[in-house]
């Protein structure tokens, strides 16, 4: 019995998210084996050794030149068979999700997406994120093989106590033409972002119902301009028609990851948090110290945004001279 991890790679080697998946896999107790598709660099091999991987199965060839989920699944199934895997997992990235779903069907297995922890191994019971992580589902994954994806940031990527010397083997995979029907035929250079630079912005100033109405965004806009950023809003604000939908940050709006997010008068509903939680720094301005947005933020100012923002803007202009 082993645990098979589909490892994704990037320019630096093992992707951060796959590192998390490998750490998660080690926690299950069984020997961990890795499947790498495409190029296998030395950096990847050495990192896999750090993560305590026992064996690396390497699938390469023309079928993997361009991404096709079914082809990846063919590799996963072949590796799972070869390694007598009891658990097959990947990180919860789009590729990881897709490959695991295909693999689950082919293995006749159940799948749990966005797992955050294993509650027990026999039977396999996991906690997994639903509703953008605001709720956890405890789920039993029945069958001889369990297929999982690991939610991003569910655990930290941590090397094993002692590095291993993984055996590297080439995985013979037969990929039929039918598995290459749905493949990426081309990629295009980035197209203009509909959300008006929201996703690319370094600074986003957020406004919620606390702005008071369509006329309540003046101070926010000014601060955004002073910082070279843009304004983002909550769903309520767009539902009420105060601001255009393109400015919406949240589960159903844009998911942003700026250097700094300044939510003003936003209580921090889950829906909104799902869209802004990747911001590197959050500075909340809110009248209520207990508001979820304040408690989750790195920094906060307690006060009415209509009083605090003009003072900040004034100070910024003053220092600029």
């Amino acid at each position, binding site marked *: 019995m082993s645990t098979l991890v589909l490892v994704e790679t990037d320019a630096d080697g093992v992707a951060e998210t796959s590192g998390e998946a490998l750490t998660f896999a080690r926690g299950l107790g069984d020997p961990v084996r890795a499947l790498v598709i495409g190029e296998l660099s030395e950096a990847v091999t050495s990192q896999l050794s750090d993560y305590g991987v026992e064996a690396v199965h390497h699938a390469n060839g023309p079928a993997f030149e361009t991404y096709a989920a079914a082809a990846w699944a063919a590799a996963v199934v072949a590796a799972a068979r070869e390694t007598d895997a009891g658990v097959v997992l990947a990180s919860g990235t789009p590729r990881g999700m897709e490959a695991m779903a295909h693999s689950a069907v082919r293995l006749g297995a159940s799948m749990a997406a966005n797992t955050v922890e294993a509650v027990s191994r026999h039977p396999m019971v996991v906690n997994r994120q639903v509703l953008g992580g605001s709720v956890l589902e405890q789920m039993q994954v029945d069958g001889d093989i369990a297929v999982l994806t690991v939610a991003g940031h569910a655990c930290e990527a941590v090397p094993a106590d002692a590095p291993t010397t993984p055996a590297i083997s080439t995985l013979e995979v037969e990929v039929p033409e039918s598995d290459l029907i749905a493949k990426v035929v081309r990629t295009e250079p980035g197209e203009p972002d509909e959300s008006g630079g929201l996703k690319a912005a370094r600074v986003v100033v957020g406004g919620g119902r606390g702005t008071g109405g369509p006329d309540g965004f003046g101070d926010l806009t000014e601060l955004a301009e002073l910082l070279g950023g843009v304004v983002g809003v909550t769903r309520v604000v767009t539902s009420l028609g105060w601001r255009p939908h393109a400015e919406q940050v949240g589960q159903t709006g844009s998911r942003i990851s700026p250097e700094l997010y300044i939510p003003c008068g936003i209580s921090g509903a889950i829906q909104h948090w799902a869209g802004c939680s990747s911001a590197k720094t959050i500075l909340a301005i809110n*009248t209520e*110290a207990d508001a979820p947005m304040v408690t989750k933020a790195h920094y906060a100012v307690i006060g009415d945004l209509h009083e605090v923002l003009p003072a900040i803007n004034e100070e910024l202009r003053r220092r600029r001279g």
Partner: protein
Amino acid sequence: MASIPGSARVVVIGAGIVGNGMVYHLARLGWRDIVQIDKGPLPNPGGSTGHASNFIYPVDHSREIASLVRDSVEQYTELGVFTQSGGYEVARTPERMEECRRRMSSAKAWGVPAAIETPEQIAERVPFLDPDVILGGLWSPTVGVVDSLRAGTIMRERAVEMGALTVAANVEVTGLDVEKGRICRVRTAAGDIEVDTVVVACGIWSPMLAEMAGAHIPLMPSVHQMISVGPVPQLAERPGEISFPIVRDMDAFCYERQHGADMEVGSYAHQAILHDPETIPSIDQAKLSPTEMPFTADDFDPQLEQALELMPEVLGAEGAEIRYAINGLLSLTSDGLPVLGETPEVAGLWSAAAVWIKEGPGVARAVAEWMTHGSSEIDVSASDIARFAPHQRTRAHVRPRASEGFIKTYGIVHPGEQWSGDRGVRLPPMYAQQQAAGGSFVEVVGWERPLWYESNAGLLERYGDQVMPREHEWDARWWSPIINAEHLAMRDNAGIIDLTAFTIFDVVGPGAMEAVQSIAVSQCDVGIGRVIYTPVLDATGHFRSDLTMMRLAHDHYRVVTGGSHGGIDVKWFTDHMPADGSAAVVELTSAFTTIGIWGPRSRDILSGLTRADLSNEAFRFGTCATIEFDSIPALASRISYVGELGWELYVPLEQGARLWAMLHEEGRPHGAVSVGNGVYSTTGRIEKGYRAYGPELDGERTIVEAGMQRPRVKVADFVGRDAYVAQREQEPKAVLSTLTVDDHTSASGMKRYMLGGEPIRARDGSELIDGHGHRPYVTSAGSAPSLGRHVLLAYLPPAEAQIGNELTVSYMEELYPVTVGSVDSTSLFDPSNERIKS
């Protein structure tokens, strides 16, 4: 979390249109150390104000509401947030056109500009409305829209600028403490505030706040569905927020209101959707706000067809989509009126709830004045929280009534219309006998009370045309000619009347005489066994009540007053008891039933049942005594509200059915019949020119205007005495007069009978205006069968109050000639009161 002071002069809970109005008006009237708390953020804390459609129609059948709306519009205008748009109430049916004409009556009575217009005229101002769908409508040029959130912010800021107010947003009230019957503390998530006066202005949450103190603010959160459709290309070109009149499609129970490039469609057509206050989501749980519930499309769908039919071009325009749709929560009450005033349960705990945008600032001013001076310039007694009897404060009562009331929002509501929910809940002891006699029941604060008895139908033949039959269905709805037949039978022989609905309370204790003396206008230092009729005034010399008292002992007065106003009187007396505890109020309504017997044969009938001497010499008018009917002790009081010899008999409730049967058995050979409340409240009283609290007497009227002044003012001090003395020195600004209708024939040839509320005009139809700047209107209308006339009461400009003066009454937009018959309390029937004193 905001920091709050540890004590305050007054705490106002709520920062919607009402709470903001309250803090402003209290500050304006000199209050300081005001603390305003709201659970939500500012300026929109998430209550009903935040999603209100914000338009205001000034025409209302209720004078109280119309006055509050007028005052509110003046305030909104002064705040700079009112935009006049004009508005229509369009009619698809002949019945609705008739209702439009009736609303014209109310418009004229309250001096609100309005006109009946044709479909073509309407389509001229609202070009996207299909005139073929409607028959016409009521045009109200002064309809407009307001920014209620902005208005609230300005009022709040003004109070802050006056140095009177501390605002604490995002602070939840967690408890209201009461000590010795008075509010003493507001507990909040941010700390406690010591305070002895609290105003609950929390809209749909008000019941929960009141409950924290053990009081009741009876209202139900109810859904009003609203969608916004747009963008409509035809509207996009118009500048500003609103440039077309608002249209109320009355028969479809919906409205259409242009808002920029969008049309808002609101509905009152669906079945009422009620939510218990406890189930309203918190701010965090709610999707939009706690009062913007998820839209239920199924309930709204039937409305779409009708809306599209009326405005196909804009609502069906290419690209016009339903972009916003909510089930908005608003407050409904059991009788459609707000809930205002100090709660009867807890001193210092005030309610300003169940108030809509249209009357918000006006209500705030009135309640602030009431808190400051004990009364308000605009009389709000119909909205007084003390009007509710205990059963009317229960959820089980409010729920069905609110449900019914929702449909009445756009309904055609007859002035006599009865509620059907939660009926049969307070039954007089003779209820079974009344049912057997075919009583046609109406409700008075829960009590079932026959308006007439079908068993008296046989009298119709005897009296023929004297019963003044009515031809028009509207005039005859909630009415029967049997009422007039019962009236004539009472005048000929005797009538037996159930008066169980009276509110009865005692004032007892060593200081009882001084206590009632300080409340009543009339002399109360009278002999034991005397009956006193008295007005009750507020400090400004306007009516608080009128009622009778019996002095039963040196330290014991029994007070009897009308059921519908009884709760308010109990509170007024309780509030005015001496601070030293030397007198107290004890409510006894449910201990006694009252049976009235009046008519020339009443003495003979009672004499057959009791050994007491009831002769005119032994039992004078205006006196009371306990007499015995078999083993039933009855407190008999010789007074009359119908102008006949007779008595009110107060007996223990459980013996009422027996006395009722005894009176009928003994009375039958004398020609006595059961007589319903139609006679007691209308025909009998109006023939005698008796004023009723509510229609004629209210917080805006004086004794002098009502023509009820006595030659002298009692020396002992009483509430309102100074004002009353001053009023007597001045010419009245209006004079309550009795008029008779000279000709009932309408243009169609059908005879019409006014029901009350109609404007009185000069013979040529021109407007009359009294010294207050008010227009005269019919306060009470009814048959005077003994006179063979239809009688109207109205306050006239003094110059018009001349006996024989010929005027007109406008009814359904036609003028009928009337003549003034009396300009004081002298009655048209038996003016010298010979019958009463016989």
